[in-house]
């Protein structure tokens, strides 16, 4: 009779094959089209930026976990995701050492200081970018026109569509700046992916393809991206901005699919997620319209991250929920 070696454990005794590392890998796969396109637009220096950002994120996590004598967690690929996400939201010309520093800050300060994966209240990649934006404001706001695989030395510096708009130019001026015949053609150009901007935020098409891939796999839910994009569209329209331009420009699509859906920092409940997404859209539009920055996705998401614990209170009613019978309020007379 086998008595030894029998595993005794609390049920269930059956487990899914889906693991944390598999979820992270699918996010990485979803980011491949946008990354490859970024490299195609901005050349091998962009590839170097991606590589340095990822490697420094992984190395930072490995070293930090070693230093605090905790279990190594680089095998879950979450540091790879953070490094890759950070690279994709940086200007393609960002000096590599800055990217490394941003990556390390993202992992060590924004993630590991709070206990690592799942415990961080703020999106690490966005914290990394915010940190860089404050430390190196010039470098992080210097953009170039896509110049193919030629060296960045040939690059002509450029302004992003949102920055031009912030300077008071009209949409058709901006379209002309990017060589589009009219604003309709320019919007199509934005969707397909030709503009000055962050490494991975050029092609809305490829971002949406990657995002829908994750939604299709069930890795992320549609609520947050839909709420972010829908509310950005709506609030832009209400405030008299071109709503299509609002969702096609800047980092809003990338943020909606890949930043706002970050597991650790978005609310868990459907109602919380919807409000969270709407909040992001609202803040983005407000920053673009009234703020000092041309773009506000980073801060919009970070601000809404703060509210996540509160939004988690908006739970779905449990099965068979019975509203509690409120004890009759004592009249004012009685309480005196």
């Amino acid at each position, binding site marked *: *009779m*086998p*008595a030894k*070696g*029998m*595993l*005794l*454990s*609390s*049920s*269930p*005794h*059956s*487990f*899914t094959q*889906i*693991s*944390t590392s*598999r*979820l992270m890998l699918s996010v990485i796969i979803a980011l491949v089209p946008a990354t490859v396109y970024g490299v195609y637009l901005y050349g091998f220096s962009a590839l170097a930026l991606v590589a340095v950002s990822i490697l420094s994120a992984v190395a930072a996590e490995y070293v930090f976990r070693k230093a605090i004598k905790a279990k190594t967690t680089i095998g*879950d690929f*979450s540091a790879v995701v953070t490094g890759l996400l950070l690279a994709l939201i940086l200007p393609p010309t960002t000096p590599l050492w800055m990217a490394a520093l941003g990556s390390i800050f993202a992992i060590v300060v924004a993630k590991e200081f709070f*206990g*690592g*994966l*799942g*415990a961080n209240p703020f999106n690490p990649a966005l914290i990394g970018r915010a940190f860089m934006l404050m430390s190196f404001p010039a470098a992080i706001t210097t953009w170039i026109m896509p110049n193919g695989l030629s060296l960045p030395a040939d690059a002509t510096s450029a302004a992003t569509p949102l920055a031009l708009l912030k300077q008071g130019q009209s949409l058709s001026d901006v379209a002309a700046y990017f060589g589009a015949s009219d604003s309709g053609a320019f919007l199509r150009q934005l969707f397909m992916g030709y503009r000055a901007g962050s490494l991975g935020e050029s092609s809305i098409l490829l971002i949406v393809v990657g995002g829908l891939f994750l939604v299709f796999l069930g890795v992320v*839910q549609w609520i947050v991206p839909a709420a972010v994009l829908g509310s950005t569209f709506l609030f832009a329209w209400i405030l008299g901005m071109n709503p299509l331009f609002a969702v096609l420009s800047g980092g809003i699509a990338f943020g909606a699919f890949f930043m706002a859906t970050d*597991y*650790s920092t978005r609310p*868990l*409940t459907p109602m919380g997620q919807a409000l969270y997404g709407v909040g992001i859209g609202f803040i983005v539009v407000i920053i673009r319209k009234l703020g000092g920055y041309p773009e506000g996705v980073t801060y919009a998401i970070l601000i809404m991250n703060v509210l996540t614990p509160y939004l*988690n209170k908006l*739970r*779905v*009613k*449990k*099965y*068979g*929920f*019975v509203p509690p019978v409120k004890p009759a309020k004592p009249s004012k007379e009685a309480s005196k």
Partner: protein
Amino acid sequence: MTAKTFKGGAHPPERKERSSGLAVERLRDVKQVVVPVNQHFGAPLQALVKVGDLVKRGQKIADADGRMTVPVHAPIAGIVKKIEPRTQSNNSDGPCIVIEALPPPAEGQEAPRPEDLVDFLPPLDAFACTKEEALARVRAAGIVGMGGAGFPTHVKLAPSKPIAMVIANGAECEPYLTIDERTMVERPEDVVEGVAITMKIVNAPEGVIAIEENKAYALPLLEKAIASSPRTRAGMKIRAQLLKTKYPQGGEKMLISAITGKEVPSGGLPMDVGCVVQNIGSLCAMVDAFKEGKPLIERGLTISGGACVKPANVIAPIGTPVSAIIAAGLAQVNAEGIGMVIYGGPMMGVAVPNYDIPVQKNTSGVLLLDAEEAKHYEEETCIRCGRCMRACSCRLSPALLAVAIESGDYAEADKIGLLDCIECGTCSFVCPAHRHLVQRFRVGKQVLRAIKQKEKEAQNAR
């Protein structure tokens, strides 16, 4: 027929094909049974026999007063050898009555007459007797919910609210298990008759036999049995209902929601939404109890799992050590390859140290998992992916519930609905970080109940 279902849930690997085609075999000539005195959900029983007594098959050997008690009967004729604590299928020790079968008559000796060895109740017509008589019979026959909980059936059949629907639970959503499936295929008439008897007792106008799509082939058999049943011909309304295959559809609450769209109120019972749900095995046991006067002394179960080279669906006397079923050759195992022994299904069953443990009234299956199936994963940190939130059929936000329990915030855990957790295991199953969520909820429930008890006492003391 469109298949209905409930919200949430998951699809654990079914692995039912290993035993779904195997006819139920009966284990005969059992040498020894170890009958647990307490096999039901409720107050403990007293043994009515002592060591050395001769007991007949079907003789009552343990009982107690009180509503939440169900007597236990001798599954075989024999001599009471011992009454002592033994490990039960819940992996804790409880008093057991060990009965050894009578040896075959010696040469020249007259074989004992069957009536000296069998002590069944007189047959009773469920449709001619009063409700009280019928309930008394259900109790006297020792019938409990055979799906796992072991809830006394006579209590379930005496609801204090009007019942609109009797549901036969043929979902059998636990992976591997196929005994309900086989019973529906082999005894469809008795399943229908059991539903009719239940409808008669609780005075319900409608009966529904619920079956999942993975055994849809049994649907025509059930429909034929329904059509040819004297009960439906006499005007009783019984139908079969197809359900989408999904775990935990066999959970009472989920089954009711799938079929009626209603939700059993928190802290309430199925009768609060006018339903009574009966296990397939329990229905057949009721038919036997009325037709033959046979108490619940044997049951069908599935023996399967990766280390089970030859799986089987068997009927064995209550108290049969599973090792005896295997020794008799009905099922074969690769003993070296066993990584885990589970009494019940892989989602809610209990892991035990060996398979000498006897079959109980609520043992729907015994799984001998191989090392691969028994693989246990190291618990990682929660990444807050929210998969458990969507899978929880009780909509309890498991991820948030676990945080509340870990931080000792039992007021919050109570608010989220900790006590509503049915421990189905879906959240733990879907967790990519392999968090032991259900285990936390089990412990948390006990702590929360203790806290509530204390509060109550403090309030009473005031």
